């Protein structure tokens, strides 16, 4: 039996004016288990707290009920005070007689009666309360960053700067991501490579950072502070340590007809390759789909010419097991497939290209050496049509996306402007639905494209692109001039919508991190916790969370790093003790609770139990990881046998409150 003290607060006149506090205290004093009652002007004051603490000591209280303002206000205050006096924090309950009683009622008699009932409910709950202690778990002081684009790079650098070890897992042979393919960046027009490659080198040279390129996350176990991850290092058939990156092999390889994915298939590379000159790590990789040696066992040219002896045709996928305290998802984006947009003739004409392809064509390191030439005949295009919102802002019934891809307006303006600057004889049309330029110096940039560079911005969407001889007939409407246009363009550039990388979905499953219907990772809170996943210990950086441009990606990456650092700084994590727990003797192991847990806090194990008939039986039972559980209680209702219950809000506690209220 608990020894409960009841403390009724006047809150000046806030409560006392409408609730007869003395009557409440006396009525509650008669309840079974209540050994002490008192009313006081301001329970939250120093003096009030001392009263609570004294009563705990003098009357050997095991629990307390404070009838006062909302628990959202002072629950923590009173719990802390009680803890100081030697009573577990969770033995204190608040009856909210201000916000939910005195302030909303005028009739004193009515309000007093209600206050007594609320107090009774709190007393009934305290009777069933048990001291709770938050669990503690150690933190592995190492972070994993999944994805080596600009988001991953920035996050890794920031974390490493704080003195923590970071591993980057990148599925491509080099880090750098989409930004490495981009020519110039808006709105400053500085060269992407010039600002990115130093960062890549910095990553490579940072002692705290390890890069696992050409690798993928294979398995994730554990929870915040204690993840254990298995990383698959795909066989690149080249010894990373021995390879000097001299590139000789990539010149001598006889297999020349491999589409170069770095240039989006606009030119070709060899079967052994280094994606681009500034690749990090600068190590060759053999493409097993094209290498003659790997396919037929005949060739071996690269092996013969490699002076470092780095070629190893027998290399196999290997696995690395590592422990991490935090995991950052930076899986990035891809432009969507445009094959289904027949009206834009993307798959019919090589001269209809995506904006990313346009970047490669205009990039000095690209297939054309930076000269703007048509892919079909290598001629210089005189009339270029840019089409915005291809696959963005659709109603979701077709192959497009419902969201705005955010970056297209700005990079299209950039492309248009650069084209006009380099080739003033080229006519440039941009078809838009809206031009969206929120961002520092963004609108000015767009206006410059129109005003200084004479780019034709036309409000209206392109209806159809018809390849006709060497020309592309573009039929579009000009909504403002109310006319239909037919433009004989030489090149059509489509601003394709961007979507999360395909690897994100299986990764989310591994991480038990939630995703929205578009496969973007969801934030713990859209406004207040935008760089965290609801799953504790999982953080979000860059476009995996939503479309973003580079400055925004970098700032989010740093924000994400700050959150990770905040976590890794701590030696121990103290959980919320009000978490779910399963009564293993009653658990069926049916997995229902696991399916409704948004945090992946529930796992199953086969355990041996001694049955009543003295036999041993192995049973599958659920166990909740208190470090991961956030205490929502979804599992407690999903569990039909009631084996799952929630500390602090147990079935019996809530029912006791119900009983007290309905009396």
């Amino acid at each position, binding site marked *: 039996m608990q020894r409960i003290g009841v403390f009724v607060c006047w809150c000046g006149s806030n409560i006392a004016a409408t609730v007869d506090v003395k009557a409440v205290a006396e009525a509650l004093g008669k309840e079974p288990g209540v050994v002490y009652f008192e009313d006081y002007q301001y329970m939250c004051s120093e003096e009030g707290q001392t009263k609570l603490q004294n009563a705990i000591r003098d009357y050997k209280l095991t629990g307390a009920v404070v009838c006062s303002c909302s628990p959202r206000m002072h629950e923590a205050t009173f719990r802390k005070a009680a803890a100081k006096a030697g009573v577990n924090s969770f033995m204190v309950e608040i009856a*909210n007689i201000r916000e939910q009683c005195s302030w*909303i009622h005028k009739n004193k008699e009515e309000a007093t009666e209600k206050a007594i009932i609320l107090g009774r409910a709190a007393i009934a709950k305290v009777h069933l309360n048990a001291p709770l202690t938050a669990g503690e778990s150690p933190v592995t002081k190492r972070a994993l960053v999944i994805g080596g684009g600009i988001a991953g790079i920035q996050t890794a650098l920031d974390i490493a700067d704080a003195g923590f070890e970071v591993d980057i897992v990148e599925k491509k042979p080099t880090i750098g991501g989409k930004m490495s393919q981009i020519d110039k960046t808006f709105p400053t027009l500085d060269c992407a490579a010039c600002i990115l490659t130093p960062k890549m080198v910095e990553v490579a040279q940072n002692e705290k950072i390890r890069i696992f390129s050409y690798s993928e996350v294979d398995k994730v176990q554990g929870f915040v502070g204690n993840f254990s991850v298995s990383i698959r290092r795909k066989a690149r058939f080249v010894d990373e340590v021995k390879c000097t990156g001299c590139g000789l092999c990539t010149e001598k390889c006889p297999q020349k007809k491999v589409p170069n994915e770095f240039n989006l298939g606009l030119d070709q590379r060899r079967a052994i390759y280094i994606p681009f000159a500034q690749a990090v790590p600068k190590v060759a990789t053999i493409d097993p789909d094209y290498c003659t040696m790997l396919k037929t066992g005949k060739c071996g040219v690269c092996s013969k010419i490699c002076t470092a002896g780095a070629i190893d045709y027998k290399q196999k996928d290997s696995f690395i097991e590592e422990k991490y305290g935090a995991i950052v998802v930076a899986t990035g984006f891809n432009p969507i497939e445009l094959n289904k947009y027949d009206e834009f003739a993307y798959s019919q004409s090589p001269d209809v290209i995506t904006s990313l392809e346009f970047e490669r064509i205009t990039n000095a390191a690209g297939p054309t050496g930076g000269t703007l030439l048509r892919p079909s005949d290598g001629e210089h295009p005189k009339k270029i049509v840019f089409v915005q919102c291809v696959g963005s802002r659709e109603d979701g019934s077709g192959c497009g996306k419902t969201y705005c891809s955010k970056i297209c307006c700005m990079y299209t303006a950039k492309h248009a402007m650069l084209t006009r600057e380099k080739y003033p004889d080229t006519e440039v049309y941009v078809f838009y639905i809206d031009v969206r330029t929120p961002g520092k110096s963004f609108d000015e940039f767009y206006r410059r494209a129109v005003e200084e560079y004479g780019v034709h911005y036309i409000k209206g969407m392109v209806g159809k692109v018809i390849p006709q001889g060497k020309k592309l007939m573009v039929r579009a409407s000009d909504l403002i001039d109310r006319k239909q246009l037919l433009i004989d363009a030489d090149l059509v550039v489509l601003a394709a919508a961007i979507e999360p990388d395909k690897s994100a979905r299986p990764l989310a499953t591994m991480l038990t991190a*939630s995703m929205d219907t578009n496969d973007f990772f969801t934030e713990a809170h859209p406004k207040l916790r935008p760089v965290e996943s609801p799953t504790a210990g999982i953080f979000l950086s860059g476009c995996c969370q939503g479309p973003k441009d580079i400055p925004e990606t970098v700032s989010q990456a740093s924000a994400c790093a700050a959150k990770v650092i905040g976590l890794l700084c701590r030696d121990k994590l103290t959980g919320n003790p009000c978490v779910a727990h399963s009564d293993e003797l009653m658990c069926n192991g049916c997995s229902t609770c696991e399916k409704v847990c948004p945090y992946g806090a529930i796992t199953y194990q086969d355990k041996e139990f001694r049955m009543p008939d003295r036999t041993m039986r192995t049973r599958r039972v659920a166990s909740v990881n208190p470090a991961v559980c956030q205490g929502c209680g*979804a599992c407690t209702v999903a569990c039909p046998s009631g084996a799952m219950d929630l500390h602090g809000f147990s079935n019996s506690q809530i029912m006791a409150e119900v009983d007290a209220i*309905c009396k």
Partner: protein
Amino acid sequence: MQVNEEKFEPTIVAFCCNWCSYAGADLSGTNRLQYPANVKIIRVPCSCRVNPMFILRAFQRGADGVILCGCHPGDCHYTTGNYFTRRRMTLLFSMLEFLGIEKERTRLEWVSAAEGAKFAATMNDFVATVTKLGKNRRLEDLRCKK
């Protein structure tokens, strides 16, 4: 609560999630928005913590109406809790109605932390509806009053 012939005062149990609706109820207090004292609130971490057993228990013990309030769909503090609540309560309420329990005695409302006014309005309306309906006879347990 005394039942007298002049005015029937229903007992109403409101389950409010800690993050939105309980805060919404607090806000309606802070703004001094009145609603009847018949409503007694029980704080739960999330609307998905509310077990159908609790609702039936309330009716058994003499509640005349039970209302469940949670964050708006999509705003759940625990991301998905209220979506589960919505499915569970849809089925439960439909079943209670199927058994002939007056459908007006149960309600699920989404009240955010900013919707103090909505909370008060909802409670006023719910109390009025249940008052009109009269005492809960179909799901009460007469033994409780012994």
